[in-house]
């Protein structure tokens, strides 16, 4: 039976100024699962990730991370949280927040250093991570000198280097150019294949069919949850939450309306190719 890594029950969060960021959200993230938190801007996705990462205590409700109940008191006990945090990695929405050292190398090394990893291993880990993301050429650069895409990749590297069991990613593909986005999607698939638990908060619905198995839709409160297909093709739900169906699905819907027959609306480019092949075959016959 799958073990829940993160459990949120009836969680609400109110900012000090009285604004409700989250209202009665409940969800479970299971070990080895890739889950997406989808929602429009200002839906509370980032706040939810901070709560899931054990950085913010909810105003009400129960939070359990790796089976341990987390509240305001637990968060202030750094020793207890340290055991949780070393198994978790969070990529923040704004990469500038994550890059605070004088070089990209130092930033990527920051996590392993504070996790007590030996000096020799830190070097090989940092270099390996930068290479796997294709950004070894920016290793000695100051974060100020980086483009937004490079900053994003460097921020992702700062988390991947510690090889956490759970990855929480807040809008990870924002600022990435198409090539880097494809590479990043490939990386997420590989990490998912290695058994990592991945949670992605995003409003970019196009990448979700490739990287998520389950989607939670939120709009300050948990609106719906389900498999990728069910959620991404539920136009009513997506419209209600200011989201959109993936481009591929929209294209096939338009084709269907124009009289082209297809068995199942594809969500990915690969699925679309298969579908088009079948359509051509049918037309040929």
């Amino acid at each position: 039976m799958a073990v829940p890594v993160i459990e949120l029950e009836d969680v609400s969060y109110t900012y000090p100024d009285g604004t409700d960021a989250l209202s009665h959200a409940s969800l479970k993230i299971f070990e080895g699962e890739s889950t997406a938190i989808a929602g429009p801007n200002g839906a509370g996705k980032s706040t939810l990730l901070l709560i899931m990462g054990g950085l913010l205590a909810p105003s009400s409700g129960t939070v359990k991370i790796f089976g341990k109940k987390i509240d305001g008191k637990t968060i202030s006990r750094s020793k207890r949280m340290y055991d949780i945090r070393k198994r978790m990695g969070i990529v923040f929405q704004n990469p500038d927040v994550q890059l605070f050292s004088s070089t990209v190398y130092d930033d990527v090394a920051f996590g392993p250093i504070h996790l007590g990893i030996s000096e020799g291993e830190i070097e090989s880990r940092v270099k390996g991570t930068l290479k796997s993301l294709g950004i070894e050429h920016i290793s000695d650069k100051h974060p100020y000198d980086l483009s937004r895409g490079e900053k994003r990749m460097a921020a992702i590297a700062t988390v991947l280097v510690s090889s956490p069991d759970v990855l929480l990613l807040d809008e990870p593909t924002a600022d990435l150019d198409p090539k880097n986005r494809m590479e990043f999607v490939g990386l997420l698939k590989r990490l998912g294949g290695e058994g990592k638990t991945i949670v992605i908060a995003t409003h970019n619905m196009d990448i979700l069919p490739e990287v998520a198995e389950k989607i939670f839709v939120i709009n300050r409160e948990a609106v719906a949850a389900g498999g990728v297909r069910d959620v991404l093709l539920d136009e009513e739900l997506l419209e209600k939450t200011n989201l959109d169906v993936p481009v591929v699905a929209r294209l096939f819907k338009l084709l269907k309306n124009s009289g082209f027959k297809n068995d199942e609306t594809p969500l990915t480019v690969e699925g679309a190719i298969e579908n088009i092949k079948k359509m051509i075959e049918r037309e040929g016959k």
Partner: protein
Amino acid sequence: MSRFVDKTLDDVIGYISQSIYSEKYSKKNGLLQGMDCRAKLVAFLFLIFAAVYVRTIEILLLFLLLSAILAVSSKISLSFYIPRVWLFIPLFTGVIAIPATLNVVTPGTEIVKVLSFNGWYLSITREGAHAAAILVIRVASTSSFAILLTLTTRWNDAVDAMHSLRLPKIFVLILSMSYRYIFLLLDMTKKMLLSRKSRILGKERSVSSWKLYSPIVAALFMKSFSFDEEVYFAMLTRGFGNKGEISKYKNIDIKSAVFLILCISMAMLLVLYERLYPPAVLQWLFP
């Protein structure tokens, strides 16, 4: 007025970004650039302390001369270096030191009468001028070494050197982060000013322009405040507060060791020389 403020802010931001952040000189193949950063840091600290310790203008001028020689041998053009040493810090110190030259603050032998009114007069005294000159030259010579260090050292190397010299970790971390975020906030300020400028058509009245700057300051303050919290979160998630830092530095090379010894010896010799043989060249002016 608004143009004046705009231009001043723009120039200040541009100057800070260029002068501090520019690594143009630190990449040159000069004397100081080739030295181990730790040696430079310790050597300049000794020279600065010695310059603070000496009490005669003559010796202070020697410190200034030494810094200029180091600048030239580090391929820093004097036309770039001298304005940086003399333009800001000593100039402002000079303004602050002006009252000290006057008889009402430092009584003594009068050199020049500045103002006289109904039997009451204001004049510059020798003792006052001496005290003010000492202050200004001391500030210039100490800041010249600090400027030399920043111009010839990459910031990353300076941070590594501080780690390696076992300076408190939190101090080095704060210093390093301040440096990182100063530029980010400067950049943010510049963009806010530009966006403001892009929405203003026609001539702006000075009072309204001043009024518009206060929300920018407030917005910047709020942004930096929210940034502060998020950066702390980002550090926490990566295990901050647990282990220390590592340094890439191992052993100091011979060339740097010799430089360090020479600088320390020079600083000590100048202080000692001043104590044993008080210079008399400028005594006719400042007895």
